[in-house]
């Protein structure tokens, strides 16, 4: 196994984006700045551009809510942003849970090294089931069901408005990732991530693999949090599709310049 000492410029860029967005939300709440107000469920950018969490929007539709124009506009903006361009980049570049889950994954390397073979494998499709379940429960209980328990919202709201006992749930998610399932929450459970996976299917921004340059060192597979997306590494060139979060850690890990961010027409095979 290679030492994971390599280029980190994309990770640094992601940390800067993630913390920058959180700080802008906090300053919106505490200092009254109007760059970003609200939270990731619904926010106003520069006091007039609405942005809606499209998954929350969908749950509200199922819950039978009367939808306002602000909500529709905000949803369209976010859907265009991620659906057409960024794909599932929300998870790796915006969501605050990503920071925790990557720390957990990093700490887990040590755990795995000292007690190998203690792996629990869980299907990565659970999140899609939970997505469906969220919508079903939203109908049954007339309320956005995932929003009531979402660790992502609890973490994000906690940072802006205060945690209460919410930190216990965040700790639980962290420990789940650390000692139970590798990349457990983001890679297996989170229906929000599943939702962005679905809407990001045809997004232009993807990571592309150049098979000719690849030396099949498989360093990318060591760092990838969504391992199945790298199934074509060492086999054929092409775009990385599926649940890829565009975190770019494979790009950083690759010493052969065989992976890079790319704009790919989804309709050209």
């Amino acid at each position, binding site marked *: 196994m290679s030492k994971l000492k390599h280029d980190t410029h994309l990770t640094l860029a992601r940390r800067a984006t993630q913390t920058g967005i959180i700080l802008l939300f906090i300053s*919106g*709440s505490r200092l*009254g700045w109007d760059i970003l*107000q*609200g*939270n990731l*469920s*619904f*926010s*106003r950018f520069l006091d007039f551009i*609405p942005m*809606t*969490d499209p998954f*929350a*929007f969908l749950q*509200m539709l199922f*819950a*039978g*809510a*009367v*939808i*306002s124009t*602000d*909500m529709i506009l*905000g949803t369209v903006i976010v859907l265009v942003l991620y659906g057409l361009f960024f794909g599932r980049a929300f998870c790796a570049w915006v969501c605050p849970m990503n920071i925790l889950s990557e720390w957990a994954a990093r700490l887990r390397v040590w755990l795995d090294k000292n007690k190998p073979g203690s792996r629990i494998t869980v299907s990565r499709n659970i999140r899609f*089931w*939970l997505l*469906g*379940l969220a919508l*079903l*429960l939203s109908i*049954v*209980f*007339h*309320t*956005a*069901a995932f*929003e*009531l*328990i979402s660790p992502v*919202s*609890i973490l994000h*709201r*906690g940072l*802006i*408005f*205060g*945690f*209460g*006992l*919410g930190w*216990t*749930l965040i700790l639980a998610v962290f420990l789940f990732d650390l000692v139970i399932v590798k990349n457990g929450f983001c890679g297996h459970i989170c229906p929000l991530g599943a939702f962005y996976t679905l809407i990001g299917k045809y997004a232009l921004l993807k990571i592309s693999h150049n098979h000719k340059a690849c030396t099949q060192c498989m360093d990318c597979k060591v760092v990838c949090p969504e391992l199945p997306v790298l199934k074509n590494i060492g086999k054929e060139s092409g775009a990385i599709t599926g649940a890829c979060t565009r975190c770019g850690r494979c790009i950083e890990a690759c010493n052969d310049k065989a992976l890079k961010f790319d704009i790919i027409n989804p309709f050209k095979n």
Partner: protein
Amino acid sequence: MSDDSKKITRKQFLAQSVKALGMATVAGIGWGSFVYELKAAPFILRPPGALKEKDFLSQCIKCGLCVEACPYDTLRLAVPGENKPLGTPYFTPRQTPCYLCEDIPCVASCPTGSLDKKSVSKEVDGALQWDVNRTRIGVAVVDTENCIAYWGIQCDACYRACPLLDKAITLEMDHNERTGKHAFLKPFVHKDVCTGCGLCEHACVTEKASIYVLPRSIALGRVGTNYIKGWDKRDEERIKNAGDNVRTQTERSKKKPVDYLNDELPVDE
């Protein structure tokens, strides 16, 4: 990998489906009961203009814009540990009451319509204008056992704190039989005028407030369609949609009064 190895028999498919469905049911029951418990928190005071609790919970996206808009830091988003629907706005009048801002910034900032602008506005020359006195957050209730004004001690803290002075709370004069020469000045809440802002609760001088705001759904009864104020035209409106079935049928009322009176007389023969 050939395609054959991926194929599964009908029995396997059935078994897998049952398994997946079973797991989804387990998750659904756990998740659903959690949502159900959280939703069943009827004691919560919402911001001005909030829809009925059931509709509010389907409509509110928990963005916290109302909390950020509140100039008095009255509103909070519910956090884990408070046994309230997570992330939804509420306030505790004893800590910080609602000061009934004339331009109602919390309602103005709400993107979803869960804080309904119409309910706290009036029409002036065809245009909607804020009318914060239409707010119906809850209703103040006096604990006449512990209110010291009901003991005969002079206290009008709530009366003076009320923004609808002498309208929502009046002081009712009464003779103090115990001393024979003093007057009671008892605070009396006019529930049709009270906004539920909680300034009275905030001002109350007893250790635990003896006047407090309750949600209207808890504090107020409901007459139903059996009784109306015949002298009040508006009250007759209330039963306009009561339907035709306003007669109660019993075994006895099926017969004519004369018949059943004669039938049921114990007659010695």
